């Protein structure tokens, strides 16, 4: 006897993406216009003085970077979680952000800008991220790839790298320390806006490339052995994906320091809504990550106005609470 096939419940994907886009658009408007009404903002867009200047020099660049960094961290989280088959993986927990921050710190201390120009920080951030991921991968790669040991090695590397960063900072003079400490906690205010034309393409291109890995990430999330049987060469895929996430993480850290939890909380929440399929998860996590960081940045600017908080503190508190809530509800 055959049981009839029940109609497959379709997820309201279009609706979910529409809601995400509306939220994102709302957060962008809020970030640009906070304290002013929207018509004034539109009028000022074309003006070169007064609030127009604030928009041009501060709010627009800051919102653009928050968008790109938030989105990038979101999809880095999705990618690493699939490879490691663990919903707790993200650039921060894996020590990739730690490596990037060490790279940027070295660049600061050695004043590499005098040699490499304005691109010294992003470049060294990427190098640091890549080095840390290579170390972690190599350590967990004895005979065959073991995702669980990669997480553990990631935590170790993360601790060691951040200790080195703090050691270097402790040698700096106190004035400099305050600024660098802000940056280390995740900060969108200290960005050099002349670098925006560099960040836009170099954060967008790897993200777009990651979007094309959705189906492969589905297969990889079944584990290396099964992925092999379905026609993929996992070590080759891992390497490509690690390089892409290193570029993104390195640039994000050089732009805005270590912003934790975005790569963890955004995919976690969205997986419950859009499902586990990675193409949908990548696109929605980009939008969701951008939204989450922009809205967190608005809070960081105005919560204790005129004192500005590092945005990493806000994402940490928000993200931690949301995650706690989700975990409590599950058990």
């Amino acid at each position: 006897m055959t049981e009839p096939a029940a109609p497959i419940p379709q997820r309201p994907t279009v609706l979910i993406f529409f809601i995400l886009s509306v939220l994102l658009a709302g957060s962008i408007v809020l970030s640009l216009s906070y304290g002013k009404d929207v018509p004034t903002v539109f009028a000022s867009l074309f003006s070169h003085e007064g609030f127009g200047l604030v928009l041009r020099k501060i709010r627009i660049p800051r919102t653009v970077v928050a968008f790109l960094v938030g989105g990038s961290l979101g999809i880095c989280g999705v990618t690493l979680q699939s490879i490691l088959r663990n919903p707790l993986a993200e650039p921060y927990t894996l020590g990739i952000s730690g490596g990037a921050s060490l790279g940027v710190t070295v660049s600061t201390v050695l004043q590499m800008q005098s040699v490499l120009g304005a691109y010294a920080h992003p470049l060294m951030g990427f190098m640091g991220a890549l080095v840390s991921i290579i170390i972690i991968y190599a350590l967990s790669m004895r005979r065959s790839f073991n995702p669980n040991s990669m997480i553990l090695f990631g935590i170790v590397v993360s601790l060691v790298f951040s200790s080195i960063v703090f050691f270097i900072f402790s040698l700096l003079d106190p004035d400099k320390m305050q600024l660098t400490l802000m940056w280390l906690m995740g900060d969108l205010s200290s960005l050099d806006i002349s670098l925006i034309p560099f960040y836009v393409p170099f954060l967008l291109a790897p993200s777009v490339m990651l979007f094309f890995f959705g189906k492969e990430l589905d297969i990889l999330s079944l584990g290396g052995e099964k992925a092999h049987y379905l026609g993929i060469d996992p070590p080759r895929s891992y390497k490509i994906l690690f390089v892409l996430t290193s570029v993104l993480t390195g640039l994000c850290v050089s732009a805005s320091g270590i912003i934790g939890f975005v790569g963890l909380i955004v995919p976690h929440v969205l997986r419950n809504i859009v499902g586990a399929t990675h193409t949908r998860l990548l696109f929605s996590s980009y939008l969701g990550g951008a939204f989450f960081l922009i809205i967190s940045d608005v809070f960081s600017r105005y919560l204790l106005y005129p004192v500005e908080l590092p945005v990493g503190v806000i994402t940490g508190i928000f993200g931690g609470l949301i995650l706690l809530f989700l975990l409590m509800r599950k058990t």
Partner: protein
Amino acid sequence: MKKDALLSIAGVSFRYGPQIVLKDIDLDVERGEVIGIIGPNGAGKSTLLKLIAGYLSPDKGSIMLSGRPLGDYSRRTLAKHIATLPQTLDMPFPYTVEEFIVMGRYPYDRRSFSYGIEEKEVVLETMNALNIGHLAGRQINALSEGERQKVYLAQCIVQDPGILLLDEPVSHLDIRHQMRVLEILENLQTKGLTILMILHDLNLASEFCSRIVLIARGSIYASGLPAATLTYENIEKAYDTVVIVRENPLSKKPFIIPVSRKYLKADNEKP
């Protein structure tokens, strides 16, 4: 070694570090065979399956698929010829049954972001054939062991392979689900699929396999029809356990009864 064999394994050895797992394995597999690989734990059965699947490479010897060395096939092409179900497959993410099964079409579908309608139709057909159509929207992790095993199998089937490699496909299932899964496999065999599976239940192997390959201590100890291989001498030697072998009254296949040691003291004779 026969030239026209679908799968031809010749002189294959494999070591894991210093430990020799398999030595000098020779095995030819014809199209449409259902081969039951049996043997004690740690004998090298799973390793043999991984070698045939191309996941491990032999240290010595060769494995040919349709007359060409396995290494000549690209990963994607090989996935169209051989589908493999590993012993354990845990799912960290909440895929639905349909989302999971359609991944079996990965080697065929070159689309960037999703699977085509025609691929989804293959999935639907297979689900209905296996009687799991009603599970399509359910989450994999919420299924019972028996249902999940059928879903795993469905993913291998939509891969449309010529050879199916299964590592203990029925070990955790109750007797009803064991029979259902093995009947599905029997049905696939009549459609020309070749199946190699590791089984621990000797009686199921006897009932459902056209050939038994008994592996012990890294070598093939016996290979042939169930009646020729599942003798009490072979089983006692390979497993170091006393058994009685009878005949299944309906199928006339060997039927193996394990014998507890406590009954051996009183009656030391063997049947």
